């Protein structure tokens, strides 16, 4: 299976109403989506093809717009359990984001020690943004110790949203939460910064998998939460190609916008330029005609 394959799995009834998620259905969607993506007998077997039992795996969630529009525990913890079933020790699996406050706002119970899953912000004792700034192309930032030191392999589990500057925010831009100064990289539609940050060794060398939380998609006026433009799509999107997965996320948003009679992102003056930059940099495939999209329903 080529890397430019993206799997969309929809769960019937997974979002009974805005703000509510059915965790059992989410687990089933993971199982189905990862099985298709990896072409393996089950999701755990697929995960074993990209993670080893000795890995420390970070699941980078996005809790910035908590509680309404954050990756909730009901979506991240089933993935953590799948990783554990694939042979990774629970204490070596970290669900993380920038701050403990944001995680708590997103209804997480923090845990930074013991044998259970780690759930922690970068401001957890012993983490932080240590060392000197890392420069990479136009990026000059301190990296979260969780991304740079703690984890050996990384999953971007991002909320899929419309974004007033970047056009969309999905798996690649989720790593803005891994640096101390994301506010400095929103000029020029966040381009080429999204791609350049992803290209930095602390991200690119560790990233293994993108999962987009499209259970509820903010398709307009994002990244803030506006219920009138938030659509319960009930989908999770899986991809090994970070650019292709984001491109498919962009298509989901464009399709929603079209269905709702809204202008395209380009017509709205904010095309997701970073996708093309990422493709030019060899990070993946941005052209939809070169991406195989597999859709399924649970």
């Amino acid at each position: 299976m080529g890397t430019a394959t993206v799997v969309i799995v929809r769960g019937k009834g997974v979002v009974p109403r805005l703000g509510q998620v059915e965790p059992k259905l989410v687990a089933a969607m993971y199982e189905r989506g990862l099985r298709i993506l990896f072409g393996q007998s089950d999701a755990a077997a697929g995960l074993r093809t990209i993670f080893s039992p000795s890995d420390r795996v970070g699941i980078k969630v996005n809790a910035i717009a908590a509680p309404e529009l954050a990756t909730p525990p009901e979506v991240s913890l089933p993935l953590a359990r799948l990783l554990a079933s694939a042979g990774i020790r629970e204490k070596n699996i970290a669900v993380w984001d920038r701050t403990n406050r944001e995680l708590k706002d997103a209804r997480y119970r923090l845990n930074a020690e013991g044998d259970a899953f780690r759930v922690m912000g970068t401001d957890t004792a012993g983490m932080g943004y240590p060392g000197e700034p890392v420069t990479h192309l136009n990026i000059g930032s301190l990296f979260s110790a969780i991304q740079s030191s703690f984890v050996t392999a990384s999953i971007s589990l991002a909320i899929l949203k419309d974004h007033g500057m970047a056009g969309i925010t999905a798996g690649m831009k989720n790593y803005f939460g891994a640096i101390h100064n994301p506010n400095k990289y929103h000029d020029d539609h966040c381009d080429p910064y999204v791609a350049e940050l992803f290209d930095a060794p602390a991200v690119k060398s560790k990233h293994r998998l993108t999962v987009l939380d499209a259970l509820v998609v903010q398709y307009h006026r994002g990244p803030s939460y506006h219920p009138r433009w938030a659509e319960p799509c009930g989908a999770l999107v899986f991809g090994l190609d970070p650019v292709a997965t984001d491109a498919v996320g962009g298509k989901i948003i464009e399709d929603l916008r079209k269905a709702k009679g809204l202008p395209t992102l380009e017509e709205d003056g904010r095309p997701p330029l970073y996708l093309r930059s990422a493709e030019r940099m060899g990070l993946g495939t941005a052209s939809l005609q070169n991406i195989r999209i597999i859709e399924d329903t649970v």
Partner: protein
Amino acid sequence: MSMNRRTFVRTAGAAGAVLGADIGPALRRLYAFGQTAELSHVEARYYKRLPDREVECDLCPRRCRLGDKERGYCGVRQNDGGTYYTLVYGKACSVNVDPIEKKPFYHVLPGTDALSIATAGCNVHCKFCQNWEISQARPEQVQAFDLPPKAVADTAAKYRCPTIAYTYSEPTVFYEYMYDTSVEARRQGIRSVVVSGGHINPEPLEALIKVVAAIKIDLKAFNEDFYKTYVRGELKPVLEAVKIIAKSGTWLEIVYLVIPTLNDSVEDIRKMSRWILKDVGPDVPVHFTRFHPMYLIKNLPPTPISTLEKLRQAALEEGIRFVYTGNIPGHEGENTYCPQCRKMVIERRGYEIVRNDVRQGTCPSCRTRIPGIWA
């Protein structure tokens, strides 16, 4: 406690311990100790409410348009439910007593101390920032302390500082805190001075200059390309700010950090000098200061002294009357010379005043007026 120059303020009344540049990078490092600095939640000034809980910041030329829960480019102002808040009001992360020459102000109360404060944040992103640990950080990432405006003024009075300097990071981003502190300080007979990159919109600037005594503008270069590439800002609004300050009568000094090969063109300095002469006047002191490798530009050497001398000479030849070199202790370019008789009227060594012969704002030899704030 006797207060000598460069004294680190360890306590500030009820404010508790404070951190400062003089205690070294180890204690200024980005926050990583498991505590979370408390943020302020004070409504910001200079913004517009927009539909759907969006806001547009009118403080600086970026005019960030922000959805709910988003922060501006500065990282210290946040939209929360359609109301815009400053997160750093009264949250100083650096507090020091510095010689005013360190800012540098050379024509403002020479030989006195300035209580110098900063919060996290900046509205540009200079690749050569000398204080990046706080200026390029978000408020959660630095240790900050409750030091409301009155406590700042009280601390300045306690340590006999005739001025409070808003400095180190970019005071524009903590505008409300700076403004209110300036008003409070003025009640106590203490002046305020501002050290800024000048990325501020006219309306807030015009209000600010009514409550402060002096502003130093860091002019990073005299071409837009440099601003775009190395500052992530624009030159034009900075020049507009300089003109507004000059027109207001608030004391103004200009500092130009000279970075080898990047902004050290003599031609640019001549152009800049001609612009200053035309739009600001010949009496604004201009400081050419020495760059040291820092932050994201570590591949260039410190500025050769000969380059600084060459640029100083060019500015003098163009007609600027008070041109200085900085960050070269003991250099003759640190001294103030009477523009008429050329006699040295203030001798400096680093941040120390060796001799100050200015009398009632004039040269003791020829009585030529030496512009500045002298008493």
